């Protein structure tokens, strides 16, 4: 039996349209998605009508503060919504619902974007649908790649989780015990004063391609979980010793034992990626064995890293019928379309939020959401 997704269809209308608003971190995204009546399948795919994003960029060495990130979202949200409507060739009144990220994420940016969602809902008299950000990533990843029931590795600036579906919940098999992987990479980018444009992680990835020597770093897998703050502290100290600008400190030189060549900042980026990604591959492989699966879907901003995809592929190739699924930056990096898609699935099963119930929350775990649109 499959879930009836058309109980709430408008009479005489053959499709649904949803607008999604995302602003849980430094990206502001607005997307419009179209579902035709019936089950989503390889012959009835969701259609992306528009997917517009604007990123708040800070100077090198600086992270994004909640106050300024929220200000970016507030001051751009109307312009970005207008652009998404024009690109999608959709009028507000054509929509079925307004979807917004309800959490998890940074409080001030979330608060700013939900105000836009509430305003649109009242302006066009449309229901609101609160979406869990992680569920947005998972559902969009499944839709784009066609992966049916994969183990999901969700890696981004704020989240690191290994997830598998069971009994109408996305269950967390393993996760970070402290900082997220993207946070670890971004903070190291700040230490090296690498630019934040287009993204600090992207710039680390490019530098890592030029790295040749592996520097020894702690490897901290704890059962199904991992810890990254110690690795960051360790590599930060190495970087400060090698390239620090403090006048009283004479910079040390670190030599690669095999070749005798000096260690460069590129080598550090390479080493950090290799160690962190190996840890991710290890816990993902263990989750695959637990649930007896052979599909991996990588979602989240760090999922666009090609080295991570390559390492995951090496692992999955050794498994029988192993398959890896990943998306490009349009869908990996935070975006509005994934919120529209997951929100529309909720809407099609009758789950909407009354105005009083649209308060955002910084803590909202993936397994708190009841996945009413799946019953496999």
């Amino acid at each position, binding site marked *: 039996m499959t879930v009836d997704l058309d109980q709430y269809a408008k009479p005489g209308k053959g499709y649904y349209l949803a607008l999604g608003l995302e602003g849980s971190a430094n990206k502001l995204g607005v997307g419009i998605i179209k579902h035709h009546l019936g089950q989503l399948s390889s012959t009835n795919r969701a259609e992306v009508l528009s997917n517009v994003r604007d990123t*708040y*960029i800070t*100077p090198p*060495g*600086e992270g994004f503060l909640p106050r*300024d990130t929220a*200000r970016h979202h507030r*001051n*751009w949200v109307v312009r970005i919504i207008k652009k998404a409507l024009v690109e999608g060739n959709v009028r507000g009144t054509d929509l079925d619902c307004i979807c917004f990220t309800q959490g998890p994420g940074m409080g001030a940016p979330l608060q700013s974007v939900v105000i836009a969602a509430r305003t649109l809902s009242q302006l066009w008299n449309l229901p609101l649908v609160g979406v869990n950000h992680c569920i947005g990533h998972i559902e969009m990843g499944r839709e784009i790649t066609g992966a049916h029931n994969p183990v999901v590795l969700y890696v981004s600036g704020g989240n690191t989780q290994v997830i598998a579906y069971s009994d109408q919940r996305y269950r967390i098999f393993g996760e970070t015990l402290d900082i997220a992987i993207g946070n670890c990479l971004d903070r190291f980018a700040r230490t090296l004063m690498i630019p934040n444009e287009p993204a600090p992680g992207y710039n680390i990835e490019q530098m890592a391609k030029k790295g040749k020597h592996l520097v020894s770093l702690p490897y901290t897998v704890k059962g199904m979980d991992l810890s990254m703050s110690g690795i960051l502290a360790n590599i930060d100290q190495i970087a400060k010793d090698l390239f620090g600008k403090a006048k009283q400190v004479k910079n040390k030189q670190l030599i690669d034992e095999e070749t005798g060549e000096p260690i460069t900042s590129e080598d550090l980026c390479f080493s950090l990626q290799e160690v962190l990604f190996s840890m991710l591959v290890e816990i993902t492989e263990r989750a695959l064995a637990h649930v007896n699966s052979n599909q991996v879907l990588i979602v989240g901003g760090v999922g666009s890293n090609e080295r991570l995809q390559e390492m995951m592929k090496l692992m999955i190739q050794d498994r029988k019928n192993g398959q890896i699924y990943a998306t490009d930056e349009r869908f990996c990096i935070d975006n509005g379309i994934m919120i529209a898609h997951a929100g529309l699935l909720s809407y099609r099963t009758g789950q909407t939020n009354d105005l009083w119930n649209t308060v955002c929350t910084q803590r909202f775990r993936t397994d708190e959401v009841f996945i009413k649109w799946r019953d496999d």
Partner: protein
Amino acid sequence: MSSVPTATYGAPDVSEPIVFEPGQQIHTTNGRTTQISDIVLKAGGEDRDKPTEAKDTALGQLRAQLTTVQDKVNEFLTERMKKEKEDKTDVERRILDDGVDEDDSD
């Protein structure tokens, strides 16, 4: 007729509700209290996220007036929080140190 936005503040220790009105000055969307943080500018960043200017329409004027009201509310609340913190520190010092500042005692 264009409507003028106002904000009303009430609290248990405030006897009369306080009303904030835009007033007669020139209003813009470039608010005093909604600028980018100094820390970003000092680090060499530029402000690429300024709000658009208000259009000369009823809605445009409303946006500009609202920004002025928001400035007034923000400044009032900041002042109130500052005072509350000072009062609390005074009370704590009186109770805990009996009014004697240890740093000055010897």
